[in-house]
């Protein structure tokens, strides 16, 4: 329970920080956008057809970009605004940018619900467009605006779950990493409960205020109407609204500050990882690094592009999630200069027995299935070459295809299949090359069942990467030592039972 609370604390703070800050900023920006959408249209109080068309297009474009793509696409902008592209603060920027068009449309809808006649009545009093907006549209739309802000805040909570992509943390990220990928049901349930409580709370507060500002007889029965200087807007509820807003603002600022302090207190070595197994291995060796006085900040990524982009831009100091062939292709495609500094582990590709039970039992003309995707197909062919079954004219280079087979003494028929289908094909083939994750899913044990397994010599070993200039940083050297330590080896062998093998 104590562990659970400790785990939940930081992500909860991060989620509140992200959502509150994003809701406030996008609330202001979106309201401005919504007001402009309404007043600049043909027949509005401040008609500007060109601006109106531009804003509409901009809003539609903004709304049609999926949030996950937006988050990645605006990274340069994010870096320009907050100085970094990863972390909770950085996640706020795409949240705000993504939410503004959404808020804008909601505000537009809320303003359009305002009685058109009341607006015309204000116009006949000789009001300026600004007076129409701040004495008419906005106060009249307050209940609808509060409802819209409630919807936005709740939507932001679900958006913030994707913040893990840029290392933003938060409850959604916790649920994905520990709950979903780590099979910790308790954490998943706890996270969901915290989220439910948050969303219920926001909805409740939103409804109470919206109902109050509807100014129907019913709502006023909440409290008696006080006689006061009546031309000033509001009975005591406005002060509740003021203090409420201030309170939420303070909580948001507090959460942000708390988080930022934790981040910036001691400039740590920032390492980007995939949660499993990379993150778990790194987590395990943290005490070794702490003993050496090295602070490591682990930043979790849920995709394979961001950790390299963040590394190349200097937002992180090293990453640990990829193998060299992937890294090389990334460097070629993105013009980056990421280098591998240490092999840590391999999730071995294995040859599993089908009708033939051993390597030597494979008959002449045996059928061997290999994965059909480009990376794993080449990797499978390399495995077959290492086992001595075939020879490739390309040697040990990555990117091999079936065309490259130069010697095939046993006349093997190599057929390419969808990787996930390979375990199922075992009954119909003599042997199959299967990725560890699919082998485990089919209850195959790589250490016991495979008739041939990739070893640490494989180029597909997962490596610690960094950028030139940092490879000799003493902190990086210490990190390598820790990741290649006997403790790490023992952890890998015990924890993953052959699904992951040390590659050092």
């Amino acid at each position: 329970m104590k562990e659970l609370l400790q785990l939940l604390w930081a992500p909860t703070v991060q989620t509140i920080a992200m959502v509150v800050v994003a809701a406030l900023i996008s609330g202001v920006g979106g309201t401005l956008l919504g007001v402009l959408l309404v007043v600049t249209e043909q027949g509005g109080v401040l008609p500007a057809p060109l601006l109106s068309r531009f804003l509409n297009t901009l809003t539609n474009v903004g709304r049609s970009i999926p949030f996950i793509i937006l988050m990645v696409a605006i990274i340069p902008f994010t870096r320009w605004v907050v100085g970094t592209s990863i972390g909770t603060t950085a996640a706020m920027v795409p949240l705000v940018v993504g939410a503004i068009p959404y808020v804008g449309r909601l505000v537009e809808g809320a303003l359009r619900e305002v009685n058109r006649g009341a607006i015309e009545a204000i116009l006949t009093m000789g009001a300026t467009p600004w007076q129409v907006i701040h004495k008419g549209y906005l106060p009249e739309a307050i209940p609808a605006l509060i409802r819209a802000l409630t919807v936005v805040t709740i939507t932001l909570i679900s958006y913030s779950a994707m913040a893990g992509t840029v290392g933003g943390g938060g409850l959604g990220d916790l649920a994905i990493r520990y709950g979903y990928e780590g099979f910790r049901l308790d954490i998943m349930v706890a996270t969901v409960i915290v989220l439910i409580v948050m969303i219920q709370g926001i909805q409740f507060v939103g409804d109470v205020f919206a109902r109050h500002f509807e100014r129907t007889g019913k709502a006023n029965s909440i409290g008696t109407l006080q006689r006061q200087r009546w031309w000033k807007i509001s009975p005591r509820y406005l002060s509740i609204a003021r203090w409420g807003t201030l309170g939420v603002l303070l909580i948001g600022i507090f959460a942000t500050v708390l988080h930022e302090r934790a981040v910036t207190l001691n400039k740590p070595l920032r390492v980007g990882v995939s949660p499993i197994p990379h993150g778990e291995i790194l987590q395990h060796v943290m005490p070794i690094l702490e003993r050496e006085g090295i602070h490591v900040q682990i930043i979790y990524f849920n995709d394979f592009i961001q950790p390299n982009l963040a590394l190349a831009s200097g937002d992180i100091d090293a990453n640990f999630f990829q193998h060299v062939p992937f890294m090389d292709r990334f460097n070629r495609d993105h013009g980056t200069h990421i280098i591998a500094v240490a092999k840590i582990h391999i999730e071995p590709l294995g040859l599993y027995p089908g009708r033939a039970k051993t390597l030597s039992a494979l008959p002449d003309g045996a059928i061997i299935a290999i994965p059909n995707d480009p990376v794993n197909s080449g990797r499978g062919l390399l495995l077959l070459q290492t086992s001595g079954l075939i020879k490739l004219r390309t040697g040990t280079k990555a990117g091999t295809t079936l065309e490259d087979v130069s010697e095939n003494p046993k006349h093997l028929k190599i057929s390419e299949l969808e990787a996930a289908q390979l375990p199922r094909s075992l009954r119909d083939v003599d042997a199959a090359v299967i990725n560890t994750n699919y082998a485990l899913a089919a209850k195959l044990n790589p250490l016991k069942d495979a008739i041939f397994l990739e070893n640490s010599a494989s180029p597909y070993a997962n490596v610690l990467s960094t950028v030139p200039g940092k490879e000799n940083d003493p902190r990086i050297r210490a990190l390598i030592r820790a990741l290649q330590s006997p403790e790490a080896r023992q952890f890998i062998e015990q924890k993953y039972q052959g699904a992951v093998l040390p590659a050092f």
Partner: protein
Amino acid sequence: MGNNANPSSQLEPRESSVPTPPPIVLLENLTKRYRQGTNWSNALSRISLSVSEGTIQGIIGFSGAGKTTLLRCVSRLDLPDEGRVLIDGADLASMNGAQLRSARRRLGVVFQQFHLLRSRTVAQNVALPLEIAGASQEAIEERVTELLAWFGLETKADQYPSQLSGGQQQRVAIARALATKPAVLLSDEPTSALDPETTASVLELLRRVRDELGVTILFITHELSAVRAICDRVAVLDQGTIVEEGPVEQVLLRPASRTTQRLLGRNFGLDQLAGYLGGRAAHPEAVFLELQFLGASATTHVLSTLVRTFDVTVNILRADIGELNRSSYGFLVVELGGATGVIEQSIGFLEAYGAVVTQIDPWSEAETTGRPQ
């Protein structure tokens, strides 16, 4: 009024005996066009109307006659295509920006659906035009207190519109329209959303506004009863033009235009008479007469005297007594049977008593008003 010796003198236009003050509202050749597909059609065609200060000027017409368009052009919610809208000497149609905003404060507008701000209390709604005009808080407080007292709304000051009845909301709307002491009040069907009892009290309130505050009122309506109750003059609008305009007694008792006759006919249910009479053929020598009396003659026993004096049969089909511009007003539809000469004599007798007599044909009334039974 009510001089029995010379009953018809009541029907003379009032303005002949009263010096004419300068017009406070002057509409000149007001034209507004709307596009329907590729065609342009006139919603208003060259409307000209002059309203003197302190008048309650009715503007009546069937729906679609252009009443709403006229109100929107006069209040400058729409820009007329041609013509001038002079309110207290300032031409709203040619103004824009700050000039228009300041001129608008001389014109209060009241709407059928009240259009109060839901987010503001009664007092705050009344204060709104003053806030917009940039009045000081002291001035606002003073004026709002004064208005709420005048309108009997003191106890409602801190309530929200949704807590008020329709009639109360319309009172607030009228108070709000008068906040900046406008010279002219433009009211668009102000009683059409109200029940008859509330309607009467709102109309009475509007009359007080004119009598005690000296505000000129442009009163747009489709309800003849409202025109009869408070208007001094009335303009009849049909298909975007004014077909008839004059003192209310003249226009309503001796309608010159077919539109006015139709309006009156529908009001008195003449269009439904044919239905009540059914298929029965009229008495071959019978005539149908519409009789209107104003003033004291409305209350005399004209018909019984008629029957005692002439050899005629009288069948009363409809009868009503009401108020027209603060005089009593009687209305009858009768079927008169008898010899042709006697009927003519009877009509002469009735007119001598001060009745306005119109011969009608119930069957054609049903046709022309487009509501056959």
